């Protein structure tokens, strides 16, 4: 386990991906790469971006740390505090509410022991986070976990299937530029 005093480092694969991304924008506009790089950082460092990780992001892009903080705190996908192994992002907006998202949230709290927008489950596996419309309203209710959408979670069986799927993941799924996924606990500190 890493401690906060050790400066985090991107993996070689991530570094290569960051350079590929930076080339998508005019040279003097590297700051444009901030959001994609924050996504990479969050995937690399255990599902959240600590101040140290954000400083690293600032360094690789070549901007001031405050420019990263301003952005990471504006966009809801970036977790600024440590999270469990899997962050379950539950859509709570109108169309999902019409199809039972409130019940789904209560059910997930009950069976995982986590608190929505609060404490991670006692086993450290699940963090529950309420989010707004995920653009999948016709398949409500929805939970997003990293890049995957779990749809139509309107029966206990569907929810169980999702949780089993997640429990069976030792590593997070590999991203396209990686050989294998990183163990989620790697950078949690």
């Amino acid at each position, binding site marked *: 386990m890493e401690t906060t005093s050790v400066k985090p480092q991107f993996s070689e694969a991530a570094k290569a991906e960051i350079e590929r991304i930076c080339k998508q924008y005019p040279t003097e506009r590297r700051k444009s790469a901030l959001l994609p790089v924050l996504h990479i950082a969050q995937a690399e460092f255990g599902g959240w971006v600590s*101040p140290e990780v954000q400083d690293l992001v600032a360094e690789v892009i070549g901007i*001031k*740390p*405050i*420019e990263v*903080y*301003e952005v990471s*705190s*504006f966009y809801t996908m970036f977790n600024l505090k440590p999270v469990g192994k899997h962050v379950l992002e539950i859509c709570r907006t109108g169309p999902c509410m019409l199809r039972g998202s409130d019940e789904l949230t209560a059910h997930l709290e009950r069976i995982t022991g986590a608190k929505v927008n609060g404490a991670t489950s006692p086993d450290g596996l699940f963090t529950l986070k309420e989010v707004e419309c995920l653009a999948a309203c016709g398949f409500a209710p929805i939970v997003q976990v990293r890049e995957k959408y779990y749809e139509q979670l309107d029966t206990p069986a569907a929810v169980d299937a999702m949780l089993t799927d997640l429990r069976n993941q030792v590593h997070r799924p590999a991203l396209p530029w990686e050989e294998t996924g990183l163990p989620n606990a790697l950078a949690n500190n």
Partner: protein
Amino acid sequence: MAKITFDGIEVEVPDGTTILNAARQIGGSIVPPAMCYYTPLKGSGGKCRACLVRVAAGSTKDPRPMPKLVASCVTPVQDGMVVENTTSEQVLDVRKGIVEMLLINHPLDCPVCDQAGECDLQNFAFEHGVSTTRYQEERRTFEKIDIGPLIQLHMTRCILCYRCVYTADQIAKGDRVHGVLGRGDAAEIGTYIENIIDNDFSGNVIDVCPVGALTDKTFRFKQRVWFTKPVNAHRDCPKCAGNVTLWYKGQDVLRVTGRKDQYGEVKEWICNECRFDKKETADWTIEGPAHIDRSSVISANHYELPVLNQSVIADLPESTQRDLEKNPPLKLG
């Protein structure tokens, strides 16, 4: 050049001038209030909506009215434009609404606020607001924090005008360490981790702040500003032009600020040494009394918001109430 009619008065201004600045050329009571725009700060304006006006005719070429009120501080004039401010019921009405919005989450603790007496929000509410509030919900609060040893941030009073951010951007030339974090009504001015603003010119954020959110921690004796006497002075300063206003109580310099014009805008930034370290008359060459025109509150000695009525007082934070008991508000004027 473009000729426009503002509240029935014609004025000719260079192309590209904003409606607000055209109105300022006319001057007087027709000038729209501005809470976020600040002439020296590139990019400022458009946010508080205090300066909304009605464009009754867009231009000579296209004389149709604009469908919505526009922010006069960021909307450029067009030749033949006809603008209504104090002559439009709609504008005055909407402005009341803006006052109300800016106050619903405001602590209303003027009696214990350093800014009272020279606060743009206080003036704005006094001149344009109504004397009741319909807001019954809980108010947003933040802890006050020190941004370094010299500046204090009372986020609860902040109206998110972004002036201090633009100031830091411009004076710190890319070394800005503070900014707006979070979003919506949870947004706050912050430095995230314990970064302090240790730039020679950081103190200017105090001058640009329209409210008592950023204050001078070295302001001695915490005097009500209307008990202090502003005097213009200068010194030979290696870092800045050294043109300042000294605020006196008797023989003591209580604080030093940049020189503000009638719209509360400083024309020259001053350095932290002039602001925080030079508090003796001997440090300065005195020019004479400074004139404060527009700050009606300073001149009229009001320091309670008109909204400080019974229903609201119940809402005052406990600390404020305690302070109030210790220091009952003075009834002046």
